[in-house]
């Protein structure tokens, strides 16, 4: 396979492979994607390339990466997901430090498509907020509902015509049904959690 093919493959996959040189500088091994080009374009024009300057999170990850590189080929370090704003757009990224053929590599992945869990989590949390709001409304309604039931029970103990007693009992049953329905609502978030859990 040609170098061009690999370069295009990495670009399609949203991967940037950067080598950490012995002088602690970073050198891109793949064509820099748009979100990374500003860092290395600046370096080519004479400025010191600083990944940490462009991505402050990496400043704190690189010591862990150094430790992994120093631990040999079997060691690796995963940054976890981090967000960075490039050109006004917030990107979700993940960095991995590995050693291959004694070369210290930093692989940065741009999480896009299904790998970008933000839309899924956004929806899940919006639904959870909506559920919390609904539960607060139900909780607010429970106190007056209990007061109505208490009043009906007191009314039931007073002398009532049979037709009136029938009405009181019917309303009490409806109230009980309503309370039973409200009591099962708190299970909703568990269903949401199962649907929304990220991979």
């Amino acid at each position: 396979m040609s170098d061009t093919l690999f370069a295009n493959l990495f670009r399609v996959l949203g991967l940037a492979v950067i080598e950490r040189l012995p002088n602690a500088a970073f050198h891109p091994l793949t064509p820099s994607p748009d979100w990374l080009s500003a860092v290395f374009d600046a370096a080519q024009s004479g400025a010191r390339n600083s990944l940490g300057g462009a991505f402050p999170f990496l400043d704190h990850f690189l010591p862990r990466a150094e430790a992994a590189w120093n631990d040999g080929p079997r060691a690796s370090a995963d940054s976890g997901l981090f967000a960075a704003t490039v050109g006004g757009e917030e990107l979700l990224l993940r960095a991995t430090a590995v050693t291959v053929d004694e070369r210290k590599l930093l692989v940065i992945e741009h999480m896009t498509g299904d790998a970008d869990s933000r839309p899924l989590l956004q929806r899940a949390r919006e639904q959870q907020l909506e559920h919390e709001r609904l539960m607060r409304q139900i909780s607010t309604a429970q106190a007056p509902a209990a007061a109505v039931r208490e009043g009906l029970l007191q009314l039931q103990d007073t002398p009532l015509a049979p037709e009136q007693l029938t009405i009181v009992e019917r309303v009490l049953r409806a109230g009980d049904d309503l309370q039973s329905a409200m009591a099962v609502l708190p299970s909703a978030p568990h269903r949401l959690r199962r649907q929304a859990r990220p991979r």
Partner: protein
Amino acid sequence: MIQKKICMLGAFAVGKTSLVSRYVSSLFSEKYLTTVGVKVDKKQLTVDGHDVTLMLWDLYGQDDYQNVKSSQLQGMSGYLLVVDGTRSATLEIARQLQQKASQTVSGVPFILLLNKVDLASEWEIDEPAFFKLVEQGWRVIRTSAKTGEGVDEAFFQLTRAMLAPRPPHEAL
């Protein structure tokens, strides 16, 4: 220039990102955009004659989907625990995160921010709960990312506490 790492901790949708945005960019949006992963912003300020660069680590909200990892807390000089005053459950999550933070990095100062003070009429967290925290020695500041109330003060006070020499295992 002194550099300090501050972590924003709290449940989801309590306003951590909005507080950072208000403090760093003087911006606020009503739209809720959940945070996934970590976002780091910088802010420079001068406290008691010291020039300080704050590295503000906006961590995703703690919930069933994402747990704050100890590795993300390491190296922090202080943290802000953010609670949504309109959602009492977020206070319990803040307590859990405070325990995790103190186990990971002991002796660093923190402040609890009772956020969304602009919605005080809808608050679920009442005065007794508030005073209980104060009695425990916690520093509490009421904030609103929407209006900006208390935001600058919170970061300033935390920075001042981070710069001050203090015995370990002591809350601010």
